């Protein structure tokens, strides 16, 4: 029995934070189809349990449901399959690059390589560090909100952030720098 007001609340919440939900799902699951399915699962689940929402941060409540649906999907995959399913190359990179003049070609290659390296390094982090970093740095959630989404103590959020950042910094530093022909500037 879904109260119209409750489902209206979830509708609005899901619409407003749909990109955040999808992006989180995409980073956790590694491909478009699973991410979309997980967000759809989350939406149904949120609509059905809207009356259990006990106040507090609504975005964190919604993202927590999204995350749980993602983890349920992840758990359903075998280990081998998980490795295969994660995309080998970031598919969305090239359309995002400016289609422009020849003197920008090298910068574009450089940017594409930086993206590729960042995506790969982040993707290779253990999931608990990856999700914490994404919630903090990309979705810009506070420690308290992250703790609510992950259902862990704030101390855990802090230690995962510290460890995740250190691991990512190391991974980026160690990543084989694919060389560009000339030494081009790193700023875009």
């Amino acid at each position, binding site marked *: *029995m879904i*109260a*119209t007001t409750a*489902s209206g609340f979830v*509708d609005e919440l899901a*619409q407003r934070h*749909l*990109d955040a*939900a*999808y*992006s989180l799902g995409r*980073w956790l699951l590694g491909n*478009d*189809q*699973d*991410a*979309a399915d997980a*967000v*759809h*699962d989350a*939406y*149904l*689940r949120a*609509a*059905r*349990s809207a009356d*259990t929402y006990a106040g507090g941060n609504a975005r964190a409540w919604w993202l927590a449901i999204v995350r749980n649906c993602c983890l*349920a*999907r992840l*758990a*359903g*995959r*075998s280990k081998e399959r998980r490795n295969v399913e994660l995309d080998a190359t*970031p598919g*969305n*990179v090239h359309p*995002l690059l400016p289609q422009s003049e020849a003197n920008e070609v090298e910068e574009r290659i450089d*940017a594409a390589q*930086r*993206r590729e*390296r*960042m*995506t790969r390094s*982040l993707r290779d982090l253990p999931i*608990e560090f990856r999700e914490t*970093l994404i919630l903090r*740095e*990309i979705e810009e959630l*506070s420690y308290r909100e992250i703790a609510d989404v992950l*259902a*862990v*103590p704030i*101390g855990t959020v*802090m*230690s995962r*952030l*510290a460890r995740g*950042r250190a691991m990512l*910094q190391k991974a*980026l530093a160690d990543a084989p720098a694919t060389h560009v022909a000339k030494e081009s500037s790193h700023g875009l």
Partner: protein
Amino acid sequence: MDCKTAHELLPLYFDSELDRTTSREFEAHLDACADCRELLVGLDELRRGLREDAPRYRAPTALRERLADSAAAMAAVAESNAVVPTRRYRTPLPLRFAASVALAFAAGGTVVALWNSPHGSGTSRDQVASDLFASHWRALAATSPVDVVSSDRHTVKPWFAGKIADAPVVRDFADQGFPLVGGRIDYVGSARVPVLVYRHGQHLIDVFVLASTDAARLDASAMRNGYRIEAVRLGDQPAAIVTDMDAGEVTKFDQLLQQMK
């Protein structure tokens, strides 16, 4: 402010989690300390790199349409006040147990079908074991594997009592070589469960006190990456040990637990 304190506060300052007074003290230290400035620059570079180079994926239009369709369908169902039809009810037996957990947030078979969606074809049996391993590893990764530190069962049990419906039986086995370290609350699926933490030499032992539905979905023992799960009983409550001890020590510890009443 000394450098050690500043190092601890640095991420909090960077993430705007410090109050104003402490921020100012931190900034005063920052003016004088090149090391801390360098660390801060490092964090900032990482953040900028993430925001520029790690794509924030946009939800595809197809997904928006799918949600709109579902919203319309749910509204129609709510209007006719009908029960949600049970589609795709091809649920393997173990998942029937999962339903009782799922019922916490909804009624109706479609929810079970959700968990059994075409992509996530794994069993809920793996899920419990995975949750246990994950909790254990997470606890190892955290600064402290426990939320309440104590070798005294008279501290640990009341701590649980305030946070969870059924506080577990707590006993210290320091004399037998398995001192009680403390306790924490962790998640198995969406259920909050008490975890007792013991130590044996260098090994940490988590004892998860499980609901009987979860316990039923757990194999007697499982291994992963050198860690093992052993289904045990804590007095009359079903429980699971997660640890990297070898089998002989696990058996010894298991026998201690079984004697608890």
